[in-house]
């Protein structure tokens, strides 16, 4: 009949019944934001790693013979450079495939002066001075352009950082909103239960006894809301993950949460419960201190 806590508060589902749902929605948004921020970080890191191990050399010259001569010279230089695993000239068909989204399908012998593209794979263990390599390339093949993707990658990293900051702000706002909602709920609860609290005080109950009753109630709200929110978030992320994996590799597929992130997300209901209970405890304690 009695636990260690005196649960003197009557059930008031009509007044507090929505609180777990609100906490759940907040946790759902929080989980999605955290998962997205982590996934963006992971995706960009994966991209950076992939791009850092590859550079591209374009040989851009209108005359086909000259283009061919400079390409050979560039290939010879690249293959002799320490740290280059291999340098491969992309076939004309592959170059056509790359430009076809913009130019449409056309025969290889359409007469379009396409540059020669050399895919250079780096071994990753030897540090290469890209600026020096670019200068040596230009000395050997003046029409050669070295692209180590850094300019483009820097923009992507900047965008990713901004996105992560925005998502972190969203998480912070969601947490603060949850705290505010719990404080409002708690104050409403204190007003609703003013008479039972007064009677408990008159019977000699210490503030801690009254606080514990609220603690338990709000812990239960936090757990309920947490489980609902995280359950819904897991379903959503799993759906996104499944759809993304069908698209193959790339940024979209990297947005799917990894297992370690998923495990971390599963701890969020506990976080919600502790946050809710702590907020309620502070609110109730502060209110009780103002009573005689």
């Amino acid at each position, binding site marked *: *009949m*009695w636990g260690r806590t*005196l649960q*003197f508060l*009557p*059930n008031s589902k009509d007044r507090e019944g929505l609180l777990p749902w609100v906490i759940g929605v907040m946790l759902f948004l929080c989980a999605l934001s955290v998962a997205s921020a982590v996934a963006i970080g992971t995706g960009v890191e994966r991209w950076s790693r992939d791009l850092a191990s590859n550079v591209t050399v374009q040989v851009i010259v209108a005359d086909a013979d000259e283009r061919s001569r400079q390409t050979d010279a560039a290939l010879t230089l690249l293959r002799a450079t320490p740290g280059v695993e291999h340098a491969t000239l992309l076939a004309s068909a592959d170059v056509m495939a790359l430009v076809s989204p913009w130019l449409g399908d056309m025969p290889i012998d359409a007469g379009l002066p396409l540059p020669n593209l050399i895919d250079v794979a780096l071994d990753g263990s030897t540090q290469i001075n890209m600026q020096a390599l670019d200068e040596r390339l230009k000395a050997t093949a003046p029409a050669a352009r070295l692209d180590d993707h850094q300019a483009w990658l820097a923009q992507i990293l900047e965008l990713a950082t901004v996105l992560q900051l925005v998502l972190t702000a969203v998480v912070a706002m969601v947490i603060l909103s949850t705290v505010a909602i719990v404080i409002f709920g708690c104050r409403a609860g204190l007003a609703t239960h003013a*008479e*039972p609290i*007064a*009677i*408990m*005080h*008159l*019977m*000699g*109950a*210490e503030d801690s*006894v009254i606080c514990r009753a609220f603690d338990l109630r709000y812990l239960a709200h936090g757990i309920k809301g947490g489980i609902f929110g995280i359950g819904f978030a897991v379903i959503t992320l799993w759906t996104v993950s499944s759809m993304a994996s069908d698209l193959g590799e790339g940024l979209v597929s990297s947005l799917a949460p990894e297992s370690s992130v998923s495990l971390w997300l599963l701890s969020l209901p506990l976080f919600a419960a502790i946050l809710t209970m702590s907020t309620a405890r502070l609110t109730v304690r502060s209110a009780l*201190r103002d009573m*005689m």
Partner: protein
Amino acid sequence: MITFENVGMRYGMGTEILQDVSFSLEKGSFHFLTGPSGAGKTTLLKLLYLAHRPSRGLVNFFGKDLATLHRSELPRMRRRIGVVFQDFRLFDHLTAFENVALPLRIKGAKKIQVADHVEELLSWVGLEDRMHAKPATLSGGEKQRVAIARAVINKPDLLVADEPTGNVDPEMSRRLMHLFVELNKIGTTTVVATHDAELVNAINAPVLSLDKGKLSLTRAPDHSDEGQ
């Protein structure tokens, strides 16, 4: 045991509800508190059961000055005071047993002690067969007896009753007053606020009368029947 000296009470910046109230309650005494509506009875009772501190004046409870009493000391002090309200103020979601057990549970009594005491007390007020009933299913008289049992379960030094017979029929009023007299006989200092002149006249006890915030002793105790 309890002394009020020149006590004044006002709420916020309002007018004084109580003005220069002075009296003392000796251990084991029985007092009625009467007065018209708005005279300040409820305010005085609130001071007596430590729901408020006075705006001015000296209040001494069990040898301690209320003005210097720290908030953390109040719960222990309040456990020495039992309160009965006109509107019972029972917890509707708890049974009669659970309501009466609350003060003991607050004090940290063991389960077995709680059960023994509560059952004994509910039998004393004639509710041994209604222990597990919730207040909604009890009559007014039964509710008030549960409230009295709850007020006295801790064997308080002071019992304060605010219109305890206000919501019960005359026959039940007499039975309830009999309970208060019984409690007073075993040494509980008792203050009963009532409008019921019949009840006041039925018991030979001093009457504290409040009118427009001023207190007077309108009937000194009659000791002629002492020793009977």
